């Protein structure tokens, strides 16, 4: 149970095993029929009992957007806040209440556009937050404008002649922002999604999980190549720590490091089999993870890595903050209000 989750070591444990049903609320779920969010919600609800912590010590915080309705459907504590600010609000909560498991649910517009600043600073601070970024590469709730992850030239209501701005790569951004845990998964692959959630929950510090999520109304099929049985094996790279990075039918293809240090994708042969890059999620330096985050073909999404790209240990902000409080008390004693008020130069009037 939660011994497995060092990031939850201060969170009270549940007295009895829980079920997915206990994490469902009585609220009617109001996403569009066919939305990828349903699958993610079901996967998360089914996963939560695995943590073995008390439901009342779990909090979901979200911003604004379709994905941000998520907390209303989780029978935990929850805050549906304002656009882009969920990481900031969650930071205040997680850094003052280390007995809570705090999750942030956000989208590509919420996290990367209006809330970009809060996201990068949460990542560099390494607050004990688990951030689930539902990336559908479109604005859904405002009815279909291009988002910061939309491909260049995207035709939308606000870009009838095509969008002009280059998209963010969320994982590259996170690695550049000193993130200690960076992973990607897909809404429709429940088993993989839960395995990534598990790894994120185990991680001490901020975990960023990008979830490719289909918006069947405004950007349908954006990740179809990664899901379609006929194409997915060729398109997806399933990363596993300590294993050679191979993919495709019969694992015929692999990732290699070229003479210039760049990563390339190529056919695996008997001659080069030993040269296939072995995935090291715990590598101290971010360079290989960064390169992996960009190895997919931007146009076709071919050879898109999923799984944990990077997981490294670094001191956790809320722990450091608590340590400073403890140190202050150890050095100077518990604060004495009367002494504080009467400090400095004083004088008496009779």
């Amino acid at each position: 149970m939660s011994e497995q989750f060092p990031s939850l070591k201060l969170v009270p444990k549940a007295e009895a095993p829980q079920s997915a049903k206990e994490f469902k609320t009585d609220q009617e779920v109001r996403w569009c029929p066919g939305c990828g969010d349903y699958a993610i919600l079901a996967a998360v609800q089914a996963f939560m009992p695995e943590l073995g912590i008390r439901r009342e010590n779990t909090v979901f915080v979200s911003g604004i957007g379709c994905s941000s309705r998520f907390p209303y459907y989780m029978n935990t504590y929850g805050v549906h806040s304002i656009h882009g600010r969920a990481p900031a609000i969650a930071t205040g909560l997680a850094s003052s209440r280390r007995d809570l498991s705090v999750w942030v649910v956000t989208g590509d517009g919420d996290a990367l556009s209006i809330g970009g600043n809060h996201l990068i600073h949460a990542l560099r601070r390494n607050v004990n937050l688990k951030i689930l970024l539902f990336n559908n590469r479109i604005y859904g709730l405002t009815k279909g404008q291009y988002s910061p992850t939309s491909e260049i030239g995207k035709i939308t209501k606000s870009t009838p002649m095509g969008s002009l701005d280059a998209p963010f790569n969320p994982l590259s951004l996170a690695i550049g922002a000193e993130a200690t845990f960076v992973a990607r998964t897909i809404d429709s692959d429940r088993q993989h999604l839960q395995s990534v959630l598990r790894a994120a929950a185990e991680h001490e510090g901020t975990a960023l999980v990008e979830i490719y999520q289909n918006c069947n109304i405004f950007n349908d099929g954006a990740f179809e190549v990664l899901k379609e049985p006929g194409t997915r094996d060729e398109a997806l790279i399933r990363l596993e720590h300590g294993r050679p990075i191979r993919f495709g039918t019969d694992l015929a293809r692999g990732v290699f490091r070229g003479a210039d240090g760049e990563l390339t994708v190529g056919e695996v042969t008997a001659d080069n089999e030993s040269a296939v890059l072995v995935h090291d999620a715990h590598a101290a330096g971010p360079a290989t993870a960064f390169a992996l985050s960009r190895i997919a073909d931007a146009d076709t999404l071919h050879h898109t890595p999923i799984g944990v790209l990077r997981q490294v240990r670094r001191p956790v902000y809320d722990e450091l903050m608590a340590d400073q409080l403890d140190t202050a008390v150890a050095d100077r004693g518990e604060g004495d209000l009367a002494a504080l008020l009467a400090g400095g130069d004083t004088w008496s009037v009779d």
Partner: protein
Amino acid sequence: MTSQVDQSEAVDGSDGDEGGSGPGGGRSGPAVPVGPQHRGAKPIRRLDRVIIRFAGDSGDGMQLTGDRFTSETASFGNDLSTLPNFPAEIRAPAGTLPGVSSFQLHFADHDILTPGDAPNVLVAMNPAALKANLPDLPRGASIIVNTDEFTKRALAKVGYGADPLGDGSLEGYHLHKVPLTTLTLEALKESGLARKDAERAKNMFALGLLSWMYHRPTHGTEAFLRTKFAKKPQIAEANISAFRAGWNFGETTETFAVSYEVPPAKLPPGRYRNISGNLALSYGLIAASRRSGLPLYLGSYPITPASDILHELSRHKNFGVRTFQAEDEIAGIGAALGAAFGGALGVTTTSGPGVALKSETIGLAVSLELPLLVVDIQRGGPSTGLPTKTEQADLLQAMFGRNGEAPVPIVAPATPAECFDAALEAARIAVTYRTPVFLLSDGYLANGSEPWRIPEVDELPAIEPDFATGPNREDGAFWPYLRDPQTLARPWAVPGTPGLEHRIGGIEKQDGTGNISYDPANHDFMVRTRQAKVDGIEVPDLEVDDPSGEARVLVLGWGSTYGPITAAVRRVRADGGEVAQTHLRNLNPFPANLGTVLRSYDKVIVPEMNLGQLALLLRAKYLVDAQSYNQVRGLPFKAAQLADVLWAAIGNLDEEDNR
């Protein structure tokens, strides 16, 4: 020892804000030598009050010099009031008018309210300081100048064609020409310091000289310098040597014939310390945390003139205080709100531009109905405005600056020391009513200081968080918006409480259950209920100071104008005028008796450091002809100026009667 200064008038009739002649003030005219009292060979004069202004270049250490003189004065037991005034630039171009930094201190043997209208003594460290400050100086005042800085080049830099020290333009002032730099270098020639380093101690020489002139105790400053430069003992000793040399210079040379004494003030009994508004506010927040049992969580982003609160609270982690320097203003308040959701006393500190950025989150806090303190240390606006100068032009921003109907209670302290009580009051309202609360201070209160009677901890009000601990419905359910019928406050159920799991958000919610609701009637009801909750907050009735009961003119202020308004009222009354005074500390909701008070007078004058924001609210709410008197100069009102306004109001009424 006898004083020739009329004490009774000074106490009852005057705040002593007029610059008297000579190096001391006093409405009764020039100070008079006290017969037999001599220190050494020099006579001592007794004064009831003095206003000193230290002025120099931004790099001359004038703020430190003023702070030290203030500490000495406080420990001596005078009543005092201070006004630091400095440019926004850390080091504006040396020797220029925009680079002048000054510190004014008013101290007295009686209760005073303002840093004084006009200095009795100006210490000018360079020509720019003289030129920038001379217009404020009444004839007969003393000027101490550092002659070493009056070079041709320095004079030309500020547009002096001729040397004002020699061209007769300063006749009518008591001019003391002191080569402060030369004397400091002379005093430190054995110190081994490079000339440039030694020169920097000249502010301590000036402090020593002034300390001698006004009989200030010196051990505090020496101890301060030893602590401040603990890691650089050579610098500490040099500063102390310069400080002592300044003192000895006054004692032994012919330049200064007399010294002055201002006896301690007769304040109400108790133990006192000198305190600035920002320090008092910081202590008030810690006290509120202790009195409520809620851990203090400050989410803040550096901004002048509020940053000192972040600095101060960061020093008190042993009180369980968490300070979070956020990536921006929005994250500062966001983190504070998140902490409040978790059961902390969430606070964010900022100034006007920061409030603008936080507005959406304040609206969220209104909707979530969570306790949150928003501390706005107002400064000159709009936009970046005058970062280091004071103004009270954020009242309407605090009142209305959000989308939708989003009422927020507002508390405003009147003096630096009152910032302590205001923090406790704001926390009481926030916690009791589950609402964000604005605390409106300003740059003048923040940096100004005055003696503060240190309260006993037991005297401080207790604040009851009254967390929800169990279901509030008979069927065992928990409704997060089921309100207390008296206060209309909703239950505060913090994560970790079993059975009370709930979701709240910025979308309109159904009364009671808190579930999302777009129902028109429900929205109408919720908007009105949130307003009714704030309108129903219990705040103390307004007290009116109207000693004779005959006044027909009422002067009403809010915030830091309290000092100059009260000083002006004293002046008018001392000269036989009738004027009533009252001061608002709760601006939303207003005290219940405000309407009655306003209607009890023929004329209501509202002085504000804005273009009439409170007056607008009073006119709208009470349909009274409140008349504004406004100034937005980045500086507090002067008592003499407001006294003229009050006399004019009294005069106008008399004229109308005679028509």
